[in-house]
């Protein structure tokens, strides 16, 4: 059902930027993201209760669960868009303890290691599409404008949108905007990509073109955490599924197994409800 491979399959062409070598790319089997006892509160409300799971390099994990269960909050804690109140998140060997301030340098490294794609795209409307994808390379990675634009053009070609480079985001469909947002997130050569319901704001047929890009990205070996309501993506593309409810992980396991034969009654009810829609 997901057709038109937009990314070229095969070995990844955008391996980690040389700068990352110093940070030490973890061994294939070592966890690249480790979340331990993660707690996040909003005032008295506890959004995340002692969450824990691990992600190996190259693994794709889908997070599913009812709305309000804390999926976005969890994802946003991984790149410190939200500051956790307790527990610890280790990303590519760097520990971020909850309730502590982190140095500017640690956060900079984190954000170059982790790319994020939002439900509402959040492209910069006042910049051309090319600029959307090139600007962080110049400002954050210190690449020359020419290098940044070459790389941006390469990424836009990979998501099938090289011909749009000079236009503004408002001229693009939602599916195109989300593909550009993926290119923007890839521009700093992250090791890990976070997706927060990347297709929820899209009509189904536009969602497909985004899912196709994500699928190819997964096949190219990218480590991914994907919050999604696309059950087929969770089942067919992700390696593992984590089910959340009320700020807790209620079940996790290999995706095919979990999706076909959920153990907890809560997961069964949830899967039933989304599949009926």
């Amino acid at each position: 059902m997901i057709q038109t491979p937009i990314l070229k399959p095969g070995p990844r062409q955008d391996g980690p930027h040389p700068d990352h070598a110093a940070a030490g790319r973890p061994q294939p089997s070592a966890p690249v993201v480790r979340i331990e006892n993660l707690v996040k509160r909003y005032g008295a409300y506890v959004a995340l209760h002692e969450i824990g799971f691990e992600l190996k390099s190259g693994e794709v994990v889908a997070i599913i669960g009812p709305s309000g269960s804390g999926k976005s909050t969890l994802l946003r804690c991984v790149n410190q868009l939200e500051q956790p109140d307790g527990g610890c998140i280790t990303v590519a060997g760097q520990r971020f303890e909850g309730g502590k301030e982190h140095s500017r340098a640690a956060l900079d490294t984190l954000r170059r290691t982790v790319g994020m794609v939002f439900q509402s795209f959040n492209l910069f409307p006042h910049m051309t599409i090319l600029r959307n994808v090139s600007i962080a390379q110049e400002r954050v990675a210190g690449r020359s404008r020419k290098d940044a634009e070459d790389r941006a053009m390469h990424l836009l070609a990979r998501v099938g949108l090289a011909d749009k480079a000079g236009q503004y985001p408002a001229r693009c469909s939602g599916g195109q905007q989300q593909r550009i947002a993926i290119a923007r997130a890839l521009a700093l050569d992250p090791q890990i990509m976070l997706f927060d319901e990347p297709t929820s704001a899209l009509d189904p047929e536009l969602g497909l073109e985004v899912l196709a890009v994500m699928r190819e990205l997964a096949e190219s070996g990218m480590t991914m955490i994907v919050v999604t309501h696309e059950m087929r993506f969770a089942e067919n593309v992700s390696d593992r599924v984590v089910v959340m409810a009320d700020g807790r992980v209620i079940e996790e396991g290999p995706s095919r197994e979990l999706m076909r034969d959920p153990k907890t009654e809560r997961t069964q009810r949830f899967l039933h409800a989304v599949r009926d829609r």
Partner: protein
Amino acid sequence: MSEILEFWGEWLPTLLDGLLVSLKVTAASLALGIPLGLVLALAVKAKSAPLRIAALIAVEIGRGTPALVLLQFTYFGLASTGLTLSSYAAAVAALAACTGAYTSEIIRAGLEAVPQGQSEAAIAIGFSRMDQLRYVVLPQGLRIAVPPLLGFSILIFQSTSLCYAIALPELMSQAYSVGSNTFRYMPILILAGLLFAAICIPATLLVSRLEHRLDRHTR
């Protein structure tokens, strides 16, 4: 009727001199006041509490004090402390302070109208706070603020007429002095009003057209 036209023709150059002063004071007040407004808007949103409070107090004083009082203060008030300003400098200082206070609110509203997701996207791609502001929030927020800033600029132009109180030879003062020399207040005040309108009405139309165009361009 032709007699009035003749009277107007005789004194128009005097009023045009005044209009020029009004426009200069407006331009200088805006050139100083709007950057001041931007600084105050950023300070009001600053992390540091003392900075925030100082900026808030400055804004409230600037907005709470009538422009006429500010003018009297910079001209007569400061003079009594030994700092003597020319009426031109006093006018610019007072109106720039007023502009800074009011436009800080306009600019702050513009910055706050930039969706949260824009800053989050900027943070997620590793932008420093400075770059977030410079490349993402300011370009969008200031664009939102342009129409109200232009609207405010028209008000500042009109309020230069208050500067008659500090003997600045702007349009209104010139009209008064012509009136008191010729005892013909009515026709000269009408001419002054027409000159104000000749600037303000086209400017207002321009602003609303610009507002439309900016609306169409974004999303």
